[in-house]
């Protein structure tokens, strides 16, 4: 069933080199010269060059998509290499766009690559989207997801969606004229703190590869007008069970963005929508803090401090300060293991979870509890260089 999505760039002609390059496409009647020309004329925007964006961009470049836009303002981090396969070890520390550009042009010099080293915002999204035919969303946070969705609907561009969590993923195509948009499925984002992604986070390295290539597949199907795109379909991917399930998605007639009585006609403040405080505002003060130097000094002096480690058991195995382990999620149940008369120093990996632990304990009546600023990472940075970081 061909898509009714309107992706109608003027077909571009192919050189002899391109004809040879894409021969495996051209010899299939479903693609052929006409299809390959459509790919060359197409303009696809990838939001994010991370886990999902890596395989997405790589395969679109290889397939002969003529113009690829990539939006990312990040720098390659060592921990990215486990899954963001567009980057090499030598790229660590470089801007993602610089490294990605090299790889993509290396695969396909015919590619017209446009890079946008910027954060996608309500101020720039619409103008940017209008220069492309299809948007592929590979972002990692709710505000941007809603921004991309709304901008796609307002600009009339299909949104090829993919998302992942640990071992599971979702894929769909939103914001086509006849199909639902992201808000038809999820009218509201979860309030901060309610969707667990900390504590037991992580992601199987292959998963964004699996889902990202599915997104690339959907982009190509939309451009060529072949196959059955995931419009009105939510594909649920379970990589552990290697099971794929599909749920029906309906266009919600009451959707504020794409329904019959639209109330959202311009882009909004998405951080506010998702209930997130601006990054410029400082963290809530009032949590007593201790620096790692002070902890070291006092431990060396033989002081009787109780170290509370609120990380998970598998983190404790990587490195620890010999603290008493109570994972943050278990703290309410196990608070009786703590002695209110002792001075407690709580730590986690970087200080976020332990700050919550300290808040909780103070509310529970503990007066002698402090948060170790920067967590065990700060200890590994400044006190014990031999300690592994993760």
């Amino acid at each position, binding site marked *: 069933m061909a898509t009714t999505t309107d992706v109608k760039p003027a077909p571009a002609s192919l050189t002899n080199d391109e004809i040879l390059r894409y021969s495996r496409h051209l010899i299939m009647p479903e693609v052929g010269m006409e299809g390959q020309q459509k790919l060359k004329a197409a303009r696809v925007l990838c939001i994010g060059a991370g886990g999902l964006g890596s395989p997405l961009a790589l395969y679109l470049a290889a397939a002969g998509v003529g113009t690829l836009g990539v939006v990312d303002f990040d720098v390659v981090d060592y921990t990215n290499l486990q899954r963001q396969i567009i980057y090499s070890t030598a790229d660590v520390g470089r801007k993602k766009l610089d490294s990605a550009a090299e790889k993509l042009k290396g695969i396909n010099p015919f590619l017209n690559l446009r890079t946008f080293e910027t954060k996608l915002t309500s101020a720039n999204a619409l103008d940017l989207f209008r220069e492309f035919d299809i948007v592929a969303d590979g972002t990692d946070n709710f505000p941007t997801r809603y921004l991309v969705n709304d901008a796609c609907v307002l600009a009339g561009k299909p949104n090829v969606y993919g998302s992942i969590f*640990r071992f599971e993923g979702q894929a769909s195509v939103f914001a086509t004229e006849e199909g639902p948009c992201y808000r038809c499925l999820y009218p509201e984002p979860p309030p901060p703190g309610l969707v667990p992604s900390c504590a037991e986070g992580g992601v199987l390295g292959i998963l964004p590869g699996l889902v990202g290539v599915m997104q690339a597949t959907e982009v190509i199907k939309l451009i060529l007008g072949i196959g059955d795109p995931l419009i009105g379909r939510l594909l649920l991917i379970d990589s552990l069970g290697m099971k794929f399930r599909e*749920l029906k998605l309906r266009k919600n007639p009451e959707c504020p963005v794409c329904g019959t009585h639209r109330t959202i006609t311009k882009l909004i403040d998405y951080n506010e929508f998702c209930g997130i405080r601006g990054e410029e505002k400082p963290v809530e003060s009032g949590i007593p803090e201790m620096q790692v130097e002070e902890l070291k000094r006092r431990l060396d002096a033989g002081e009787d401090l109780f170290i509370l480690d609120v990380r998970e058991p598998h983190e404790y195995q990587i490195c620890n300060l010999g603290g008493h382990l109570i994972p943050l999620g278990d703290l309410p149940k196990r608070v009786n293991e703590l002695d209110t008369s002792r001075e407690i120093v709580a730590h986690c990996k970087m200080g976020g979870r332990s700050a919550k632990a300290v808040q909780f304990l103070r509310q529970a009546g503990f007066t002698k509890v402090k948060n170790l600023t920067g967590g065990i990472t700060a200890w590994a940075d400044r006190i014990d260089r031999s300690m592994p970081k993760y």
Partner: protein
Amino acid sequence: MAMPKIHIPMPLRQYAGKQAAVEVKSGTVADALAELLDQHPDLRRHLYNEDGKLRAFVNVYLNDEDVRYLQKEATPVHEGDTISIVPSIAGGKDLDDFQLSIAEMKSSPHRCCSPACCCR
């Protein structure tokens, strides 16, 4: 035929004894969810708000249909049926990270507090 079961999505498994699916008796979707919460009360605040309404970022499907387009929580559930709870996922950044101050985030090389940085 098998008893109806409820698929627990990955982000919520830690509140359901790490199970991927829970068997329930037939009845309605409301009955099935109530039975799930009886067995795993920690799930309640993730699925329902203070007014007792299913949270807007959580969708419930009976087999492959969204119950909003069937009889909502009154939708009957039969043997062999599958109820899916499908929350929105964006992977990646722990939303609480946005509440760390800029200074804290700059002072350490990692951007996330979770064991593995970003699911993207």
